[in-house]
C-alpha cells in the first residue's frame, strides 16, 4: 500500500505541534537524584558478615592509630637535635634504629654560613643507634656522640641515650 503524497508533510506538522521534550538533566542533578531517591538494599548473610568485618577492621585500625598517636604524644618523647659539620656534603640524612634505617623524612637542613647540617626531632627514652648518611651513600658516625658501638659491618654506629625520669637530672 502506497502512502499518500502528503504523508511526509503531515508527519512533520504533527511533530512540530507536539510538546517539546524535556531537556536532559545536568550531571550534578542526576547525581543528586541518585542519592535522594529511596532504594531498597537487599543483603545476604554473607554480605552482612563482610560488612561487619569491614566495620570491625575499621574500628581496629582507628584504635591502633589512636594508640600510636598517644605514644607519639610530646610528653612521651624527648627533643633531640642532630648536628653534623660537613660543608662539602650535598645532602645529609639521619638513619637509625628509630626510623628503620630509612632516610625518608629525616633529611637534615643545611646552614651554609656555618657549614652545619641540623635536624631536630623527638625520640622515646632508651638507647638508639644511628649514623649520618652523607650524599645518600656514605654512612658516618657522629663524632660528638658520647658512645659508639661496632655495627657488625666493619663500621661504628653512634649511640644516643635518650634520658627518662631516671637520668633526667644528669
Amino acid at each position, binding site marked *: 500500500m502506497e502512502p499518500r503524497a502528503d504523508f511526509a508533510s503531515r508527519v512533520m506538522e504533527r511533530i512540530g505541534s507536539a510538546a517539546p521534550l524535556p531537556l536532559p538533566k545536568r550531571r550534578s542533578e542526576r547525581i543528586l537524584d541518585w542519592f535522594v531517591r529511596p532504594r531498597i538494599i*537487599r*543483603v*545476604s548473610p*554473607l*554480605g552482612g558478615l*563482610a*560488612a561487619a*568485618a*569491614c566495620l570491625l*577492621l*575499621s574500628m*581496629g*585500625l582507628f584504635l591502633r592509630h589512636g594508640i600510636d598517636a598517644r605514644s607519639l604524644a610530646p610528653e612521651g618523647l624527648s627533643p633531640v637535635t642532630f648536628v653534623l659539620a660537613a660543608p662539602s656534603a650535598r645532602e645529609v640524612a639521619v*638513619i637509625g*634504629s628509630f626510623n*628503620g*634505617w*630509612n*632516610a625518608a623524612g629525616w633529611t637534615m637542613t643545611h646552614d651554609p654560613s656555618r657549614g652545619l647540617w641540623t635536624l631536630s626531632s623527638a625520640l622515646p627514652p632508651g*638507647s638508639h*643507634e644511628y*649514623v649520618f*648518611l652523607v650524599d645518600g*651513600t656514605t*654512612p658516618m658516625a657522629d663524632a660528638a656522640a*658520647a*658512645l*659508639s*658501638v*661496632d*655495627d*657488625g*659491618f*666493619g*663500621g661504628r*654506629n653512634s*649511640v644516643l*641515650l635518650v*634520658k627518662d625520669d*631516671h*637520668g*633526667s*637530672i*644528669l
Partner: protein
Amino acid sequence: MARFSSLLLLLAALMAAPVALHAAPLEGTLRQAQAEKRLTTGEAEGIRASIDQARERNLPTAPLTSKVEEGLAKRVRPETIIQALDAIREDYAFARDALRRGGAEPTPEDIVRTGDSLRLGLTRAELAEMAELNPPPPMLATAARTRAALNAIDFSAVLSGDILRRGLSLGSLTPGWEQLFRVAQRTRDAGMPDDAVAVAATRVLADGGGPAEVLQELGLTVRDTRRGPAEATK
C-alpha cells in the same frame, strides 16, 4: 547481590593488608632489595634462614630485622649482613643463658639490652662473672649496660667490676645507673680521678641512691633542668 558481597569482601581484604604488611616488615624489605637488584634470591634466602634460626631458638628477632634494614641502607654486602646476624644471634643466646642463671625467665627486652651490651664493650667474661651473683634478669641487664658504657669510655675495668658487684649483691642497681658513665665523664671534666667515682658510687649504692646522688657526693652541682629556677626551689 553477589557483586555487592564480593566488593565488601575485597574491601575487608584491602583494609587488612596494612596489618599483614606491618607483621612482616622483613619480607617487604627483602622483596624491595631484590627488586632493586641489591639482593639475589639466594642471598635473601640466606638472610631469612639466619633469622629463622633465631626464631627457632626463641630469641628476639626484631633487632635482627633492624640489622638487615641497616645493612641494606648502608649498602653492605649480603654475606657481611648474614655474618652480623649470626654474631648478634650468638650474643643473644649467650646473654639469655647468663640471664637465666638466677632462675627467672628473661624478657626479650632483657635479652636485647644484655646482648647489645656485648657489642657496646662488655666482655662475655664480665657478663658471666656478674651472672654468678644470680641477680634478677632486669637487674643483670642494667648491670651489663652500665658496665659496657663504662668500658666504652675506658673506665677502669677493676673499678667498674667493684661498683657493679656491690650494686648486684645489695640489689640496689636500678635502671638509672646506666647513666653512671655520664657521671664519670663529668667527674673527669672536673679533673677528678675515676677512683673517686667508684668510692662515691659504692657508698650511694649502699644507701639505695642513684647516679645523681653520686654527683652530689662528689660535690658536683646537680640541677633538674626540666624545672625553672623558681620551681626548683619549691
